């Protein structure tokens, strides 16, 4: 986490004054492009052995399946870029999802059962941010403690009772866009989690690239000292990052809770690792201060696609985790090699 990295800021800056060809080269060697390539390759190979893999339904399911993880990974991306970490996301998703379901079955308006968990997530994020930025407790310690508190607290309060019988209009994640026919092309009904995932990811990517605060996150993560010298308030940035992260976790929790007719009011095991893995495979934090939310989203989709592919091509499910581990290593290594080449 604390590897002193001499590389600074966005690599794309190098290319600004160069020609189209070299711009393309930079794009073609970016983590996002590599991931896109891997996803396409995976679709091609598995689709070749079993065409049903490429059926509209399965592709939508692959995108939909990890959408809530991709949403949480948006926040995680910022957290990791700022040289922090949040390992309490899984527990927080469990708690906020339970809050959402409880509101819905206790007669509160549906919009409040969607909105309250998101705001609550922001509040929890602010608390974490305050402890990290102002009380100077390392984020891994704060979130490790919070993970225990949320996990144990949730069971204490709910006794593990499942939440069922939500009103019909509650299931946000099961809603779909209307089918549109545009210029003779039929656009199928897209599940709402996919729409939310894409919109949120793009908004975050643009914000991080073009707004002063967004750029400051990279600066804080890349070289906190330099950032401080150039007048950026590190504390304020870290607060901001954790609040945004909390809001993202809140949205992810609502998507998580509204996709099925039962809310298992416990903490989903290992969810935080999936979120962190998505961010990391997406190219975040190799050197600290680098990475985008688009990469994280593609990584979340890739993980979902692999999970589906393993079922499709009859690979023993015993090996899933080993495959994921090798995958993380390979993406990280190619990323390192690529960086070395572009620097040379």
């Amino acid at each position, binding site marked *: 986490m604390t590897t002193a990295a001499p590389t600074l800021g966005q690599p794309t800056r190098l290319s600004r004054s160069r020609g189209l060809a070299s711009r393309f080269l930079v794009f073609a060697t970016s983590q996002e492009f590599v991931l896109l390539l891997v996803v396409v390759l995976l679709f091609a190979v598995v689709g070749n052995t079993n065409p049903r893999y490429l059926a509209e339904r399965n592709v939508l399911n692959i995108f939909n399946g990890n959408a809530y993880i991709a949403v949480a990974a948006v926040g995680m991306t910022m957290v990791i870029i700022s040289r922090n970490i949040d390992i309490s996301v899984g527990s927080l998703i469990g708690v906020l999802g339970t809050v959402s379901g409880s509101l819905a079955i206790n007669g509160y308006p549906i919009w409040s059962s969607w909105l309250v968990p998101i705001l609550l997530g922001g509040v929890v994020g602010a608390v974490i941010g305050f402890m990290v930025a102002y009380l100077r407790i390392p984020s891994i310690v704060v979130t490790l403690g919070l993970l225990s508190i949320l996990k144990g607290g949730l*069971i204490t309060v709910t*006794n*593990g009772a499942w939440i069922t019988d939500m009103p019909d209009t509650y299931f946000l994640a099961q809603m779909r866009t209307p089918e549109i026919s545009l210029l003779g092309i039929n656009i199928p009904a897209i599940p709402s989690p996919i729409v939310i995932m894409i919109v949120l990811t793009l908004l975050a990517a643009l914000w991080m690239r073009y707004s002063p605060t967004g750029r400051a996150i990279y600066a804080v993560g890349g070289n906190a000292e330099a950032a401080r010298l150039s007048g950026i308030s590190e504390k304020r940035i870290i607060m901001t990052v954790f609040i945004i992260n909390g809001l993202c976790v809140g949205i992810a929790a609502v998507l*998580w809770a509204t996709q*099925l007719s*039962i809310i298992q009011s*416990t903490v989903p095991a290992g969810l935080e690792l999936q979120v962190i893995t998505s961010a990391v495979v997406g190219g975040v934090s190799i050197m600290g201060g680098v990475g985008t939310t688009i990469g994280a989203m593609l990584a979340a989709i890739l993980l979902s696609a692999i999970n589906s592919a393993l*079922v499709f091509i009859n690979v*023993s499910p015993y090996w899933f985790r080993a495959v994921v581990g090798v995958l993380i290593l390979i993406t990280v290594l190619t990323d390192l090699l690529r960086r070395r080449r572009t620097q040379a």
Partner: protein
Amino acid sequence: MKAKVLALFVLCALVVMSVAFPVAAQDRWDGADDLDVNPLECPVAEGETAAEEAAAEMDMPEYDGGQPTDAPDLAGQDIVVVDVPKLVGIGYFAATTLGQQQAAEELGNVTVTTDAPTEANIDDQIAVIDNYITQGVNGILFAANDPVAIAPVLRRALEAGIHVVGYDANSEPDAREWFVNQAEFNGIAKSMIDSMVAEIGEDGSFAIVTSTFTTPNQARWIAEMQAYQEKCFPEMTWLETVEAQEDNVLSFTQATTLINKYGPDMDGIFGMTSVATPAAADAVSQAGLCAVDAVDGAASSEDDAVAVVGLATPNAMKPYVTGDFAGCVKSVVLWNPIDLGYAAVYVLRAIVDGEFGPGDTSVEAGRLGTLQVVNGSEILLGPPFVYTAENIDGFDF
């Protein structure tokens, strides 16, 4: 540079190892264990059930449970009992806890508290039991996460003079006095397969969603299902088994992937846990493949429809049996977990009171009447129960 090559080499070696190593054991990953199986008789055309009764009259093995040393005589006195299920936080064990509380209330001289880890983890479960031995309870009820790993700590409990009774998931026999068996493995297997055959016919194809391949009960049921299906319905096609932990989102994803993979080639899905079954039903209804046309999620044709049969608690399944998606699921197999917890407390009370011990062939269990002893030191709750649209609304857990 040399070191870099070395590092890459080690990495490659690991990858190769990960592929090459399991070839020896790769022949099956259907989620079944490799213990002996004992499939029941096939269903007979005209409702003859004589065969089943014959099976029950096997030679009774010797009592093979353990005994506590110097347990204090507390006949008729108040006792404190701790219940340690596999984990807290799932509906199933909430139901067994409810049953225990009911029994405790009826008896009036038993106090039961439930405490268990939040994840089904062997080490945490051992630590919890250990603490209660130290604290000094009179009895321990348990549902084991691993039959062998839990044995040493249970033996310590017996040595400390604590009465030990298992339910739901057994330990090694000599580490506890009695085990309340919810239903025999082959009985569950028969109910599951018969229910599925009723929906998809004797030549249907099906896949399974289970928790993990290491969960003993699930592995046992799958093995028995396999044996029974091969014996009675050899025309059925066994597609595959997928793992989904005790996680409903993952269960939903896995079931959806199965539906997408096999399309019309798959006729049914078995859910092996109380988490997997409702999630599989959700997957089928969201994919629009329910077998009835009265609801939103109806299949376009009979051929496309996917049936769901599985182990589940009634409340979680009501939407699919009688609720919004009525008819999407026709039968849910389960014993009554409330009765299971209830029986466990009665058995423990009977032991403490000296009314029940090695050599006895039956025990009185309150509203459940007389329960039979099987397999040496197990008490059988009864045959598995099949919930259908006719009776499911009468249950609330």
